[in-house]
């Protein structure tokens, strides 16, 4: 199955899931995956970040299901804050380097990593440990601090956000992976995969001006969808997000959620977070707004979920 087919199928599942039970969708999946019913979401608990990812990607049939030889891959972690990994402000660097290694193993010609940071980007890249980890794994670490790195893209399906400037690393890639960290967020309730899209955008103030939750849902209608959303919940910032004030805001929760379904994976992560601290679904309003835009379902019963404990 090539990438285009793959993406088409996901687009179709997005629509299809709203009306049909997930089982019937198996018919849409091409031959090689048909031996077993296709997995929609993999949740792993109890391991190290890299170990959990290896297990999760295996459940999806390996990285070569997503990355083909010679392709340019872009990985978009959350590197928003000048924080060390223990403070859970940014995606875990071990997870990022493991994804990069798997991409190269699957034959990627180039892997790029970037984020449009909130704090000074040099400090964020350094202190998050992501720059070093990514470079060591062979990826190119790109800056995102200048408007000239971004290109105007129309968002016809967006409700109030009709266009945005998107980082060229995403636009020029063949495949991209959305790799957020699960965190509390003062403005949007939680920040997970959908909110992580704000790091591929130049003008974020516009989001706040127009209505944050709707704009988050709108930007996720970008045609170029991530092949997978890989939610790092190894350490979770339960309070004072998104940057946190001290380590007392952090819970070592050792989990990972992986799915091509952005609304569903964020719903799963929200339910997980809800065990740590109360977080009703409707506080994270962009999930419901995303569902309204046909980006996927918040009803996890419709999905084939693999739950794995290590």
């Amino acid at each position, binding site marked *: 199955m090539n990438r285009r087919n793959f993406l088409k199928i996901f687009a179709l599942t997005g629509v299809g899931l709203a009306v049909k039970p997930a089982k019937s969708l198996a018919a849409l999946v091409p031959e090689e995956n048909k031996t077993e019913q296709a997995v929609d979401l993999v949740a792993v608990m109890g391991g190290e970040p890299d170990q959990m990812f290896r297990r999760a990607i295996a459940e999806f049939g390996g990285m070569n299901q997503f990355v083909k030889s010679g392709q340019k891959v872009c990985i978009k972690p959350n590197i928003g804050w000048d924080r060390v990994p223990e403070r859970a402000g940014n995606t875990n660097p071990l997870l990022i380097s493991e994804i990069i290694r798997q991409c190269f193993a699957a034959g990627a010609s180039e892997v790029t990593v970037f984020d449009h940071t909130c704090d000074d980007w040099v400090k964020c890249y350094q202190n998050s440990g992501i720059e070093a980890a990514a470079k060591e794994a062979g990826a190119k670490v790109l800056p995102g601090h200048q408007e000239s790195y971004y290109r105007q893209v129309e968002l016809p399906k967006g409700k109030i956000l009709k266009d945005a400037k998107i980082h060229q690393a995403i636009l020029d890639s063949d495949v991209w992976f959305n790799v957020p960290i699960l965190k509390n967020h*003062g*403005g949007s*309730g939680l920040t997970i995969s959908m909110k992580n899209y704000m790091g591929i955008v130049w003008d974020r103030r516009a989001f706040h001006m127009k*209505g944050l939750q709707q704009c988050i849902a709108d930007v996720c209608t970008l045609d170029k969808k991530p092949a997978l959303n890989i939610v790092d919940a190894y350490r979770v910032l339960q309070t004072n997000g998104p940057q946190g004030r001290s380590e007392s805001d952090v819970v070592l929760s050792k989990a990972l959620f992986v799915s091509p379904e952005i609304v569903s994976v964020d719903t799963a992560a929200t339910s*997980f977070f809800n065990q740590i601290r109360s977080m009703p679904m409707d506080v994270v309003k962009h999930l419901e707004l995303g569902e309204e835009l046909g980006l996927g379902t918040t009803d*996890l019963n419709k999905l084939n979920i693999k739950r794995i404990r290590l």
Partner: protein
Amino acid sequence: MLRKLRIALALVAFAVLTFFFLDFSRLLPESAQVIAKIQFVPALISLSLGIVLLLLLLTLVFGRIYCSVICPLGIYQDVISRLANLFRKKKLRYKFRKARTILRWSVLTLVIITYLSGLGLVLDLLDPYSMYGRMAVHLFKPVYMAANNGLELLFTAFNNYTFYKVDIHFWGWASFGLALISLLVVSVLAWRFGRTWCNTICPVGTVLGFLSKLSVFKLSIDHETCNQCGLCSFNCKATCIDSKKGSIDYSRCVACFNCMESCNKKGVKYLPFWKVKKTGTDKTQVKTVSGKIQAKTKTKTKKRIETNTDTKIEVKTINKTKTDASKREFLSVLMMSSLLMPKALAARFRQQIGSLRPLKRTVPMMPPGAGDRARFNSLCTSCHLCVSKCPGDVLQPSLLEYGVEGIMQPQMLFDKGFCNYDCTLCTEVCPSGALKTLTKEEKHRTQMGRVVFVIENCIVYRNETHCGACSEHCPTQALRMVPYKGHLTIPEPHPDICIGCGGCEFICPVRPYKAVFVEGHEIQQVAKAFEDEEKQDIVLDDFGF
């Protein structure tokens, strides 16, 4: 040999300091700041006695080594004179010039009087290190950054991401203009007359020149070997060698050793003063003695002993005190008016746009570690090293926000970025002690200003949509999102724990007047520590879905 050593050391110091000013990508280790820390004026006004004593001792033993090896403006002039010779068919021959003693001492007096009367601006304008600093930040750095952007374009075209694009900032006409004027004046003088600036205007040159007359090691002309060819004088960029008389004006000699190397007879020697007497003939002894008498009369003139020349000087001093009085009056009027001007202007612009409430900071924000306003204004020499180093582009030269005494001194503005919570760089590099060095923990508790939240302007209040951008950027949660209508949350200010980093003001999306800004302090405060969340032992054994 000595000349080559001088050139080598000077070039290293000059290159390191210049690059430290330009180095936006932090390639140099922070230890490079040591060159800024051993500059005379910053060390003096920060009362870094160790460094000042070291520099004085250096001068008292070896002469004006500071001027030839450490001072960036001095070395810059040497570079310019050297370049000038490349453009000339024939190398420039310097000629002995008479010392402009009165001018030198008048400038120094003016600097001291104005500084002691609370107007540090004259010192800021004339301190050679700070002059050079501003030239580097406002003139050289933009060129360096533009070159970087050129390389970035080229390399990125070939898929190489070694370089990254940077914003080239223009920090206002005042700083740029003053830097440009300094550059032009100093360059033209250096191009045509060598070290004229150092020996007529520079207050540091005057002080060290006075001391170097008393130095242990001196250059001297051996009259037994000297054939009065004049080569030493031709090569003296300080124009202080009178080869006909065989005398050297030590108050102007910057110890460059050009004369020594130029002499074919090896007749210029660098010796301790007692050896000068031994080797010299009777003739030289007379010369040195007469030199000493000259020097003495000069010092005596200050004591106002009646001689012909002295009366002249005295008249001038009296005149000068008169001018000073009126000048002081003029300056105080200027100062007063400039303090009131911004307020008058602000009133003019106080027109409401829409229903937004206009916001205006009334007290300018000093950088971290500045302490109280009077102290900061008197210690800062506006070298702009902190401006150049600030990773968030928060520190910017002021205009009249601090009044006349603080023109060009750095203030915090949040239009381009905000002060990084963990960053203490400006307090570390400040050579004059205007910014006290802070540890990360001290910085976390230093309140540079306090948050002011204006609910009428807030997105959540006006549009009833989620926002929280300010709270998101607040490192201490001095703006905390609290329940509002339905699931909406709205910022709640806690100014006690605010440190004034400006993250909230920077990011607030409301225009033209934001819903949040930071008001400065006349005296920086200690912020209350925030209370940590209670650490709960949470054991997760389920996915929750």
